[in-house]
């Protein structure tokens, strides 16, 4: 027994020696960048997901700032990216100097906003409220008014529709008829009922959840109020949106295709539905899914039920983990300036949220051939101005939308009664906010 203990002691001793050695090595390395003075090389990491269109901008910034070296960290999977982001916030290390953040995940981050720098304090003076559309700028602030993100792009909502399918069902598509048809959600679903009967039972929209999300986003109060209380049961707007959507499903208006699945791509090809809620970035998705055989059949209109709305878009944040918050904030401010966002727009298509970029002739003159040569830039810039003040998104808001409301509506499409699905929706939301 004594001998065994000796052995353990030796092992522990060895391990400690190793630990001390590595610890020394670690602090040596850490000391170098922290002490970086003016003129010394500063390395900034920028973590983004999907396509931000920044690839060509990094070398440009490095040329302007010879002491800065930018290391991009790109990933394709947005869900995975945000999961990792939250894990790394919890771990207290591993985040990049600039972390991109998608609007739908803002609600999960905002209750951890103390882990991010207040950009209104450390950022350059020209990156202020005047740069962005007011709702975009305000949504980047936490409850205490700290600005945790500079807006990059956005996804103002419009309505996409199939001209040929509507014509085949004898539904007029001139501007006046469209704006009457898409004036409110009631008129939209009523038109859908008409379409179903005139087209011999074809579906009006792709999936219930897509409409429901847009409807809830237009409400003054969302799933949670500003004191982070769940409002679902007390908020008449949510119940009314639910009833309208599930009623439309019951009338056969839904093609029952969950967005972004192979089934929904097949549905685009098979012309399974006639209208679709379309944020600016959806035009590319539609083109890719519907394919060249449907070119010119899709159109997009500025008439959108219930006014405007926004779906998607991102922010650049500077976590407090960053060793060079000031330099990082400067880079983030530069990337989100109108000039740079316009370049990103031309490179990869993210729709800019900066006032000057929206007014620029390059954006205003942008057309989309797949959608019959429509002036898409101009149309979506107008749509963006229709967005009201941002709805407060409490912690868990994104989860409720994606993992509770979506599946509950899907179950209605699969045959569950609207009342049962509502109970599932309420119970699921309570579980998430518990």
């Amino acid at each position, binding site marked *: 027994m004594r001998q065994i203990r000796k*052995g353990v002691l030796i092992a522990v001793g060895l391990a400690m020696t190793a630990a001390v050695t590595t610890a020394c090595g670690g602090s040596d390395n850490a000391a170098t960048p922290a002490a970086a003075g003016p003129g010394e090389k500063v390395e900034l990491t920028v973590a983004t997901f999907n396509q931000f269109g920044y690839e060509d901008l990094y070398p440009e910034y490095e040329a302007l700032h010879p002491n800065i070296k930018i290391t991009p960290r790109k990933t394709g999977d947005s869900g995975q990216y945000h999961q990792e982001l939250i894990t790394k916030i919890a771990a207290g290390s591993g985040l990049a100097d600039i972390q991109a953040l998608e609007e739908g995940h803002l609600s999960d981050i905002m209750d951890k906003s103390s882990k991010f720098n207040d950009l209104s304090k450390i950022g350059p003076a020209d990156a202020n409220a005047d740069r962005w559309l007011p709702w975009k700028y305000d949504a980047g602030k936490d409850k205490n008014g700290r600005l945790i993100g500079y807006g990059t792009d956005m996804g103002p909502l419009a309505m996409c529709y199939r001209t040929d399918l509507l014509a085949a069902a004898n539904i007029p598509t001139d501007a006046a008829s469209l704006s009457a048809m898409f004036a409110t959600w009631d008129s939209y679903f009523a038109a859908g009922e008409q379409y179903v009967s005139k087209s011999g039972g074809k579906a009006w929209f792709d999936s219930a959840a897509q409409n429901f999300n847009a409807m809830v986003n237009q409400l003054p109060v969302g799933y949670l109020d500003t004191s982070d209380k769940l409002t679902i049961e007390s908020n008449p707007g949510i119940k009314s949106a639910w009833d309208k959507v599930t009623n439309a499903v019951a009338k056969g208006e839904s093609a029952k295709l969950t967005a972004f699945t192979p089934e929904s791509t097949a549905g685009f090809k098979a012309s399974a539905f006639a209208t679709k809620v379309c944020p600016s970035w959806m035009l590319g998705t539609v083109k890719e899914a519907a394919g060249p055989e449907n070119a010119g059949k899709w159109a997009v209109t500025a008439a959108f039920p219930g006014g405007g709305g926004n779906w998607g878009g991102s922010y650049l944040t500077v976590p407090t983990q960053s060793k060079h918050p000031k330099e990082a904030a400067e880079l983030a401010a530069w990337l989100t300036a109108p000039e740079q966002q316009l370049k990103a727009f031309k490179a990869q298509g993210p729709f800019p949220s900066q006032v000057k970029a929206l007014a620029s002739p390059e954006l205003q003159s942008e057309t989309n051939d797949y959608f019959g040569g429509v002036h898409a830039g101009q149309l979506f810039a107008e749509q963006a101005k229709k967005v009201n003040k941002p709805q407060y998104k409490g912690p868990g808001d994104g989860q409720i939308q994606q993992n509770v409301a979506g599946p509950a509506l899907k179950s209605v499409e699969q045959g569950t009664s609207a009342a049962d699905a509502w109970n599932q929706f309420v119970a699921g939301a309570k*579980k998430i906010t518990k």
Partner: protein
Amino acid sequence: MTTIEKIAPESAAGRPGKSARPALRDRLSRWDVKYSPYLYVAPFFIVFAIVGMFPLLYTAYVSLFHWKIGDDDPSFIGLDNYTALFADDQFWNSVLNTLSIFVLSSGPQIVIAVLLAAMLNMRLRGRTGWRVGILLPYAASLVALSIIFSNLFGPQFGLINNVLEGLGLDRVDWQAGRLPSHFAIALMVNWRWTGYNALIVLAAMQAIPKELQEAAIVDGAGAIRRFVSVTLPLLRPTLIFVVITSTIGGLQIFTEPKLFDAQPGSNNGGSTNQFQTVTLYLYQSAFENFNLGYASAIAWVLFLLIIVIALVNFLVTRRLAQTSGGKKWL
């Protein structure tokens, strides 16, 4: 190891000048004999302690807290996570789903594996080719397989429903219902694992002495009789191994149900959790709802569940082994 331990004290005692301080060399070599074996096995135990034991115990610790990811000071709540879990319908639903998918997959899988092995054991042209062939699904990427299968089972535009319709049968919404979705997921599992199990059974079949088969032929037994009365009883230990490994795999099934309904929110396992397994629910609790305490409680209950089922398997094994020993084939 035991031999070394025995030798060590003897050699020490047999040394002359025992009372004097042993020379450093002697002491070193004695330490070498005594401690080296521990050193040799240490890497496994050290790695196991870090990646196996520590997470296991730490999970138990975390499960006693209301611990949301990123919480600075999680609050201790004792066994509340467990009481909540045992009252959680969604958890029992996921247990039921797991068991149902497990039965639907492992049952047919083992029967088919034995039949496949019996066929491969016959004189076939290009035997090696066939044997490698049935292992191919196992070699293919699980994720790719799951994506392909969920496309095939697509309710509106899937190939399987088109074929069913072509045959004049009704379309099935493979994702909506509980049984259809379990069936589809079990099929993915079977596709991947049947060949693997067949090869294990085949190896056991080839180890059966020829004399036994020949004796049975002399006694006038036909092919089926020989399979049932000679081959199957002698396969018993192998079958038990196969059953146990597929139990462990089956209770942890994750990728197939996650990718079956590949969409945002796929951790739900269907719109009404109709195919959410325990592991999927665990993953959802931890990395989607960020409720680490609750997820840890699920992990522990799943761990205990697997131990219980493994124990049942063990008892059944012993029972079967005894009866087969009692029959005394030889």
